């Protein structure tokens, strides 16, 4: 019998075993990165809209309250996309002949709603209700970020379940007084104490109840 393999195969053979471990680990790691990346979640991605609506201008610049447009946010599951009429309330006077706003005027003329694109597209099997979040003291900014700084609206969080769960486990980290819900710039001096008090005051359910499957999946 003569040698079948070269001396160097010894090193290669051992290396390949370790290599397999590292490659498998690397693939797993890459998959988890990809899964959490904006490519998969659309976090921070703006969506092309029929009219380039700017929250920064309307909120920070003009000081319009969230509820002026999203008028059901305190009462219903959906915050509400404003009807064209809401836009026209002002834009019949201001920028009333801007070509950029032509789709709005056309919608108003024809009565056919504007085809706004969803920025926050939750999975269909998630039951989400704006009103309860507002009622329990979750501010807009917690989920939507500083929309007053967004020229075009982008998805602020990843919207992955681990993000939802993080708040449902420790809601006191995010709770704020009723009158500060719509204030995007406000921050508590001592969030820890305030949050604990508010949780008690607003009758927040226990973490176990808040993280029960049926809380969000019904």
């Amino acid at each position, binding site marked *: 019998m003569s040698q079948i*393999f070269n001396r160097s195969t010894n090193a290669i053979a051992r290396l390949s075993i370790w290599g397999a471990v590292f490659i498998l680990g690397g693939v797993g790691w890459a998959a988890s990165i990809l*899964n959490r990346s904006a490519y998969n979640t659309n976090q921070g991605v703006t969506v092309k809209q029929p009219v380039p609506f700017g929250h920064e201008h309307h909120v920070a610049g003009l000081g319009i309250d969230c509820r002026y447009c999203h008028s059901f946010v305190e009462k219903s599951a959906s915050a509400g996309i404003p009807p064209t009429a809401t836009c026209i309330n002002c834009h019949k006077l201001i920028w009333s002949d801007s070509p950029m706003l032509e789709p709005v005027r056309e919608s108003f003329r024809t009565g056919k709603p504007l085809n706004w694109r969803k920025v926050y597209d939750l999975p269909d099997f998630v039951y989400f209700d704006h009103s309860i979040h507002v009622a329990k003291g979750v501010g807009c900014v917690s989920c939507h970020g500083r929309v007053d700084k967004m020229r075009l609206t982008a998805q602020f969080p990843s919207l*992955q379940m*681990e993000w939802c769960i993080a708040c449902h486990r420790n809601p006191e980290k995010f709770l704020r007084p009723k009158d500060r819900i719509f204030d995007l710039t406000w921050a508590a001096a001592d969030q820890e104490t305030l949050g604990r008090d508010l949780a008690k005051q607003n009758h927040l359910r226990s973490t176990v109840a808040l993280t029960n499957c049926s809380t969000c999946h019904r």
Partner: protein
Amino acid sequence: MSANADRPPVIAPGYTPATVTDKISAVVLNKTPRWWYVGFAISFLAAQLLFITIAKLLVLTVGIWGINIPVAWGIDIVNFVWWIGIGHAGTLISAILLLLRQTWRTSINRFAEAMTLFAVAAAAQFVLFHTGRQWLAVYWLFPYPNTMGVWPQFRSPLMWDVFAVSTYATISALFWFVGLIPDLATLRDRSKHWFGKITYGMLAMGWRGSARHWHNYETASLLLAGLATPLVVSVHTVVSFDFAVGIIPGWHATIFPPYFVAGAIYSGFAMVMTLAIPLRKVFGLEDFITMRHLQNMAKIMLATGLIVAYGYGIELFMAWYSGNTFEQYMIHNRILGPYGWIWLLLLLCNVLTPQFLWLKKVRNSVLGLFFISIIVNIGMWLERFVIIVTSLHRDFLPSSWGMYTPTRWDWSFFVGTLGLFFSLMFLFIRFLPVISIFEMRGITTGHDFEEQAGEVKP
């Protein structure tokens, strides 16, 4: 083992290490016989059925199967349990018989272990594809830090099953491969073709058969056997928990674990027999797989068959004894309901037929054993059908009763896994030694691997 005059020997007389080596490695290294191509082609064709069904399943999901409410588990699970059960004999032969120092196992263990591995591969198809959406099943089944922050439900027997089956697959693969290493070295040294030399050489990993090699090797083999023995019991126990932990009448019985394990061994030995009898014939291996093997397997089949019959009996008795309406109706429906004929057939196959094995004449007849083994294979399939479908189709609420009929895709999946199993089996008998060469060498010179292995036990 004690010498016993009226038992046939485990290897025909006159063999030496050299002749054993040459004869068994010739099966692998000689030219491929024509029947192999025919057999492999048929199996491979059947395996295509599996791939077609899977393709269809991936698009349309489990709706193409006959399952629905109330029978949400159909013959996909029947087939899963059946395949896993068949796998058990392989581990049992190599592990438990190694621990019990039963020399006769040597010539069938390799082959039985391969059978285990391929049966688990076939069973895995059902586990994998019955989830409907396989890409989601990853987070249902495996604990990893996923983006939902959720973890699998460890109180569920289905999770236990995931761990049991994947551990079983891993350990059987390792056990099989470790057993192959010295024989791969043999093939490396015998192979005339450069491709064979390199392939077997890489797989043999430089095995030289030094005293140190053998010592660590024997210790590791024995420990693996010691680990595999409780493992194999645990696997079918966990499979039985899939049912018994639920509260469906007909499923929720404490006898299920031992009764399932016995049933698995029963069907597993039947399958070994079904495969070994033609194999020894076509390869001329009658000198290695002797009548002694077939007789011993027949005795084990008889014993496990009786345990299974005990299980059937105790279920009937306990249903009556419990005084529980639902349990009693379950038995009534099992015997007299629309699937009653299957139950009857099951009794014929699993309880009546093996009783012939009490007769020495039957145990000595190759043809008789072959037929009985096939009937038992069928019977054990029917048993799982009875347990799963008959229990589900009429449970607590008469308003939600229903019937179950498998569709042609159910059957094509099953036939496809048979094709997969036999394709792998054909590849195995062509490219790897079906009998452990080094252990046979030891037997011919009286250096029993088992005897020695028993001594190195920690």
